[in-house]
């Protein structure tokens, strides 16, 4: 079986986000970029499946500007076998991404697509679900546990009530949650090997997809600054404040 792992290049999770002065988006100039952490978990899971004998090949795919190849190299250094870079504008939206992934699935015929449940930049949480719908495949989202056997995947999904255990038939799209695994760091020999692994470069046109945005962002702004709190002397004072000032009781 082949596993497809889509990986997105995002602002590093440690970076303090700055909004551009004109409100048109987030400032990414001279900002550290990394692989979306949920995609790292997806990549790790694919590697573990390969190590356990469930898969023969892992293909990582990234869609976006030229520097996405750095993110692909990270996936290759972790253990993916080859990469596909779809060179596209930086702000491709989930539906266009899902359509491009559908076309790549058509070419590569994977048995599984394992991907992050969402990217930490726009937090859309849509691409996996859209891809499964476009393909007509089973989907299991927010998974924190995975077992494969007899052409089926048994997963635990993290839902509001706790863990939901479901079984899906392969081929399927799996989107992974934080607690599925702890991704490995790349070892030096694997970083060196990754330099020699192939990355194919495609365009959205090669995949028959128009990457132009369908949704228009009106404005991006920072959340309001947190106001300083007050210290109260007694419970009575608190109750009065909650009644009169906050109006919540």
């Amino acid at each position: 079986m082949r596993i497809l792992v889509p990986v997105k290049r995002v602002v590093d999770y440690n970076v303090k986000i700055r909004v551009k002065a004109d409100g048109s988006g987030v400032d990414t100039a001279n900002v550290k970029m990394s692989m979306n952490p949920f995609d790292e978990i997806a990549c790790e899971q694919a590697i573990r499946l390969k190590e356990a004998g469930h898969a023969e090949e892992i293909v990582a795919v990234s869609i976006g500007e030229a520097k996405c190849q750095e993110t692909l190299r990270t996936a290759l250094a972790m253990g993916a076998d080859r990469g596909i870079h779809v060179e596209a504008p930086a702000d491709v939206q989930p539906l266009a991404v899902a359509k491009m992934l559908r076309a790549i699935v058509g070419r590569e015929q994977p048995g599984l697509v394992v991907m992050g449940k969402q990217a930490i930049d726009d937090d859309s949480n849509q691409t996996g679900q859209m891809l499964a719908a476009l393909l007509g495949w089973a989907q299991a989202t927010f998974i924190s546990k995975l077992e494969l056997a007899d052409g089926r995947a048994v997963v635990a999904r993290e839902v509001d009530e706790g863990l939901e255990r479901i079984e899906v038939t392969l081929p399927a799209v799996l989107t992974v949650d934080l607690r599925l695994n702890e991704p490995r760091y790349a070892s030096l020999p694997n970083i060196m090997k990754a330099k020699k692994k192939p990355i194919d470069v495609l365009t959205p046109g090669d995949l028959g997809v128009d990457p132009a945005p369908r949704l228009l962002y009106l404005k991006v702004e920072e959340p309001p600054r947190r106001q300083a709190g007050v210290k109260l002397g007694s419970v009575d004072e608190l109750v009065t404040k909650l009644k009169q000032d906050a109006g919540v009781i």
Partner: protein
Amino acid sequence: MALRGDERHAELRAALREFCARFPAEYHRRHGAAGSYPVEFVDALTRAGWLAAMIPEAYGGSGLGLTEASVIMEEINRAGANAGHCHGQMYNMCTLLRHGSKAQKDTYLPRIATGELRLQSMAVTEPSTGSDTTRTRTTAVRRGDRYLVNGQKVWISRVQHSDLMILLARTTPLAEVRRKSEGLSLFLVDLEAALAKGLTVRPIANMVGHETSELFFDDLEIPAENLIGEEGRGFRCLLDGLNAERTLIAAECIGDGRWFIDKVKAYAKERMVFDRPIGGNQGVQFPIARAHVNVEAADLMRFQACARFDAGLDCAAEANMAKLLAADASWEAANVCLQLHGGFGFAVDFDIERKFRETRLYQVAPVSTNLILAYVAEHVLGLPRSY
């Protein structure tokens, strides 16, 4: 190269930063305070192949040069850790790689690459023989298929976290050689075997929690096949290791310098006094800027030394000059960082006092600033020998 120093080998740096982030400041602070060896950190570095960077691919390493090895050491120090706990493996490797026999390489390199064996120690310095290495008093006398070693060494680092050690001993008495640099030989010592049979290790407590010891050799037997290179020509072999060591330590100083500058730059921007950041004062920003200039300048010499070493050219002048420039630059940055943090610089939780002590060592070891100046005066400028 058009790239700036810290832009070179970006993929190695990115991976190391991610690796080092798993060992936060608190981890190094705890080992610093206890004076203990960061076993988990060094083990993880070894498992991820970083300390086998210079071992050829055929032996299970990554076949990289001193340039890349120096980037590894730099990034460890820049991340707030101390590469002094593990840099021995890198420069000792240079000695074994360049002068070891095929049999020695076949025996040891694959096991060093996997981390099964650690080659962290090199025993050269003696209580009465510091920089004047040719006066080495420890002797190794051939007895059939063995050498019998007697003598004493001091400031031998990481012996307790190493399986193998490179040893310099005199095999022909000083009075019987034409040149005083002749008659010295290098040996590979199996430490575990030696401990039971004539080697005594006595640890020395010290200011920076560096694991270092005194060694006593009392009729220690070493198999003759553990001789590295030719008997009597050990001094030449040793120099490769020393040049690599100095260059790597220059890189560590660059890493320290950048750590101090990152730290003080952030503080100077955010620390408000008289309603404005202290970094707005020229009296504050000029010393930071000057320290940065000196770190960047030292970095150029460090890469020059690395490039010459990797090309197989003589790099003694560059290795020594890089060590001096980088050690001075990191010490300057350390002083600026401590000074501008005021009292907070002395608070253990800021990590500055620990890094300050650690980087101070490099004014002294592994070769003191005065000895570098004496070397440059005599060997580079052709001035009369001053010592």
